[in-house]
């Protein structure tokens, strides 16, 4: 066997595999995300990207096989589904399109970008499951980057201890002990890039980190892997504000710094000099 033939034997399967995986595309033409993955949605995590429904066409994220269709009208005996189409992809992912009215002539196999149906009456939701790892993952990490989005902004940050709740400001004086840091409006601005990780530093040391990239199922319920599994109630309060619990501030002066990394990889920082005594 010649060298060129050997190389072609090695390359052809790679090409075939990459062709089968297909180019990944945004399933909603607008790409305007109403609610991102991991955001507070009532009393649970948002499991995907939520788009506004305006009767627009919804298309396949990548080449795949239709494995589940639940109609908008649920036949007797079926579990309510609100119009759900699920595709299985060759790379171990399944993509779900919830709240859509599927096209009547939908075939069993679809190509990336091929339309699956129309957005229904309410917001429709796009989810991706990593089947092999049994996780729902953040679709934003598997979609083409939205380079034109302006960077994230850090909303109002509050410090809370017991009933004492204060808006954080530079030069602020706080009592030593354990505090809860509350961050407002993390996911509220859909005209900006989506935050994917929030980290908190005290005197240069990372004291907390929230990474919104995968949701898993445990015996105790659904958790965000941060990477340690954390429940919804641990990350959010009843108003849907993001919390860093148990932040220990010892006597002295220091800088509290909040870093937010967005979907494009940019990092935005806010910091406050605090006096603890």
């Amino acid at each position: 066997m010649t060298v060129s033939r050997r190389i072609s034997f090695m390359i052809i399967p790679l090409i075939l595999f990459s062709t089968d995986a297909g180019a990944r595309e945004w399933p909603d033409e607008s790409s305007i995300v109403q609610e991102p993955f991991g955001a507070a949605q009532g009393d649970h995590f948002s499991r995907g990207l939520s788009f506004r429904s305006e009767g627009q066409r919804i298309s396949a994220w990548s080449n795949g096989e239709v494995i589940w269709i639940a109609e908008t009208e649920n036949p007797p005996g079926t579990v309510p589904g609100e119009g759900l189409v699920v595709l299985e992809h060759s790379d171990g992912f399944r993509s779900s399109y919830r709240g859509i009215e599927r096209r009547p002539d939908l075939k069993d196999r679809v190509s990336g970008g091929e339309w699956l149906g129309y957005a229904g009456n309410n917001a429709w939701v796009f989810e991706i499951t990593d089947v092999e790892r049994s996780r729902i993952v953040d679709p934003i990490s598997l979609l083409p980057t939205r380079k034109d989005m302006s960077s994230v902004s850090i909303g109002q940050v509050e410090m809370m201890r017991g009933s004492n709740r204060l808006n954080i400001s530079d030069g602020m004086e706080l009592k030593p002990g354990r505090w809860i840091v509350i961050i407002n409006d993390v996911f509220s601005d859909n005209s900006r890039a989506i935050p994917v990780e929030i980290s908190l530093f005290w005197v240069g040391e990372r004291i907390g980190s929230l990474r919104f990239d995968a949701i898993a199922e445990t015996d105790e319920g659904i958790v965000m892997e941060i990477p340690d599994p954390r429940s919804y109630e641990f990350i959010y309060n009843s108003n849907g504000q993001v919390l860093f619990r148990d932040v220990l501030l010892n006597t002295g002066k220091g800088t509290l710094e909040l870093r937010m990394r967005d979907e494009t990889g940019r990092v935005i920082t806010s910091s406050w000099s605090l006096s603890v005594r």
Partner: protein
Amino acid sequence: MKQRGVFIIGLILISVYYFLFPRGSGKELILTPDSLTSLEPTESATGLSPGRTLAISSGNRAGFVNDNHEFINLYTSDRMAIDDLWIAVSGDDGLDLLEPDGRLIARIPDSSFPVSRNGNLYLYRNDAGVLSKIDPVSGRIMWRMEYISPVTVLDGRQGRTLIGLLDGRVQLIDDSREVLLDYRPGGSRVEAIYGGALSSDGSKIALITGLDPQRFILLEERKNGFRPVAHHNTSTDFRRSVSICFVRDDSQILYESDGYVTAVNLNGYEIQPMELSGRLIGWLDNVITETLMLLGRKDGEVMVKMLSRHDLTLFEHSLPIDTTGMLRDRNYAIIISNDNLGVLEFTVQ
């Protein structure tokens, strides 16, 4: 001795002939249209009604009829579940659990989809993967489960709940939330659960699983838990919910196949096809003793078919295209469409 042998063989042959070709009894099945009721709220469709009630549901309408098949209550909502003893109506503020006469049993602060299965009430929130079981007598939440995968199968019998998931798992949970079974059938290129049913005593689980191949699996409870006792490829390729049920006092399982229904006899696991046009959308046992009624939908046609104990077709008839299901009430079969209830009375003379 030889004569005795011939006599015994002859007796056996006569017995076999008798059972294979039973004589006509001279009895005739009489089918009489009893009433046709519009599925519309009327003035008479309100207020208290003593006695027995029967739950009727079609599309976004559900209510109760009395012994004469007259509506005593009718509700309209996209999120409802109904049983003969209660109705659960979901709204933006939560779920109202009501008695047939409209009296409030409980208000539950949860606006999930209510689902009714054999007297059991469940709430399913598909955007959060949360499934709860509710005690319909008190409105108390009995248990709550959270899944990352969509729930594709839900059935409840004898304090047990069967849950099938699109990721290919099956769980059986009792009323104390103990997981009695956590099973992944596998064996197919695509793992998923497409259909499932519990036997009336909760000891058998019938499943339609996977793609390529799609498979039928029967699990039976033994001393050391549930074990697969029968399985076969179904030669189907459904990518949606597949109808499957236990019928004839749990002696037979029916499931939907391409253009017909497959029957699996639990005695020996023998498989036999039953002709039925299109998708199996309903079944009724014993409207007349040992008969089975099947409802099938195909394109622009809904067909009802009644089979004898030996699967002989007693009658077959087309129904209005908007027929959604059927119910048994004593010796009546109630055919439910989007707009009407057609009540048929069966007698044998």
